[in-house]
């Protein structure tokens, strides 16, 4: 299966901003953040089409998101994921003594998602990564 070494950038988009204001449980929000903007040339190298799921893996985790063909190419080797629960799985938690994790410029690998792995919804993502265990008080 083809895979690429890329630099991961995270950030805001207008759709993400609108989606979060309509509610974190809205489909509009999930669809705006569980995505990855990728250069059309990189899409060809991965031999997949727009909207196909890709798996992004960093030293800190991996997540499956939907691809969006970047409207502002070229930026070969740089992929963009909007802020949100999906991006938070794979960002660098190290703060280097500043309090600030590294949300941008992270080395990552991107590949077509294995057939059994799909883009999770917010409840599914919470269940997989943030299981709540109640402590008796």
């Amino acid at each position, binding site marked *: 299966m083809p895979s690429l070494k890329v630099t991961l950038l995270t*950030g805001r988009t*207008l759709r993400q901003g609108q989606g979060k204001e309509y509610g974190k449980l*809205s489909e509009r929000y999930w669809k705006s953040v569980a995505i990855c903007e990728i250069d059309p040339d990189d899409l060809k190298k991965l031999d997949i089409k727009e909207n196909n799921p890709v798996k992004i893996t960093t030293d800190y985790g991996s997540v499956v998101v939907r691809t969006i063909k970047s409207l502002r190419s070229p930026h070969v080797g740089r992929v963009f994921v909007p802020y949100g629960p999906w991006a*938070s799985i794979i960002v660098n938690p190290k703060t280097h003594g500043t*309090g600030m*994790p*590294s949300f*941008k410029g992270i080395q990552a690998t991107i590949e077509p998602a294995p057939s059994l792995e799909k883009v999770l919804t917010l409840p599914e993502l919470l269940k997989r990564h943030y299981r709540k265990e*109640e*402590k008796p008080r």
Partner: protein
Amino acid sequence: MRVISHVTCPGCGCLCDDLEIEVEKNTITKVKNACGMGESKFLGYSLHRPQKPLIRKNGELIEASLNKAVKTSVEILVEASYPILYGWSNTSCEATRIGIELAEEVGGVIDNTSTVCHGPSVLSIQDVGFSTCTLGQIRHRADLVIYWASNPWSAHPRHIERYTNFTEGRFRSSAWNKYLDSLGAYRSERRMQRAAKLAGEIRGMPVETPSVKERAHRLPHTLFEKERKMIVVDVRRTRTADIADYFLQVEPNKDYEIFQALRTLIRDEELEVDSVGGVPVEILEDLTDVLVGCEFGVLFFGVGLTMSEGKLRNIEAGISLVRDLNQYTKFIIMPMRGHYNVTGANIVSTWQTGYPYAVDFSRGYPRYNPGETSVVDVLSRDESDAALIVASDPVANFPREAAQNLIKNPLIVIDPETNATSLVADVALPSAISGIEAEGTAYRMDRVPLPLKKVVKPPRDCLSDEQILRRILREVRRLKRKGGRSNG
């Protein structure tokens, strides 16, 4: 129908205060003058709201009375030896003030979202100071606007329209018509290119068109003219870059090098390399001429600088560049603050404790050491044993390990809406939305305080963040007097 004018938008750090809201039977029906984000907030605020407080029992969140939810929250906070109190950027200054009193009372660490936003900028400003002004000054006087690692078109949609290039200032004209002309010219050029390409394909002779990359490395003549202009510096082309007079694409994590290269060139020193951070030196030399040649320059920077390698040192280099430029012309620098009252959270924290964020009260007095007392570090070291989150969603936005450590301990959430954090909370207290259902004060990104208006009534029994926090604080004090555990 009621029309409320001059409403302040609780959307982003721009705090646009010219909104007009139409209300019918306590429902917002129309929003005028807002951007897409602001309009979504005013029209969509009621869609995913819990109606009653929730308490977790046997793994499920079940409805409870406000008194019961407050009592459970108070017990959690008083029993904890090192609780976190986090959020504060999407609520009023009045709520933050009570939050700080509460943090002192329970001996916890209080931090706001600037810790994962412009925290490094605050550290740099504390190191080297900065020259800044209000957005009004920029609107009327700035002729060169630089957005560095910032994408206001997406994150602060009305910033350009209200405060910089697309606004009509007293001494500077709007660049809106110039932008429309350039857009028309660009579209014509694209049409010509497509036609030439098609003609070439029909004749079997491909036509070479200038690549985007080649265009990006040519400084347009408009940058040297005495009129308002915009430069965008970023690691990828953004919507804002599309409307700029010039877009400088740099390699990721190389901003520090570019800043220092520009500082070197401003001092008339030579660079003994061909390019810096992916930018040819001749471009940087031309850019230096533009920076020095302006009459009033402003450098707005975004979290692209604080979240990449170098962090606070990137900002320090940017501030130093602006300081150097002030030997030749007038130049100021300003962070593009994201949440609408993150600046207010810093200001309230500073006037109450002496420190803008990451304040630790565990020893009974305020202590500040970002990297140690900042919330992501406290969580990464798994030191806290409870948390109160106000108007924020750290489970969605913190790195996974920190979020996992947050939710494994008792978690109280005060938030108007259901979000990832409230779904895994032990106590969820719905509150009135500041700026829509509750009044208050917020600080714009240039540190100008503005009043937040109440345009509709909150749902029945729904109190503001400030009122809920006051009740919790009062009950905490009462419980401690009665002999509950003291953490001072």
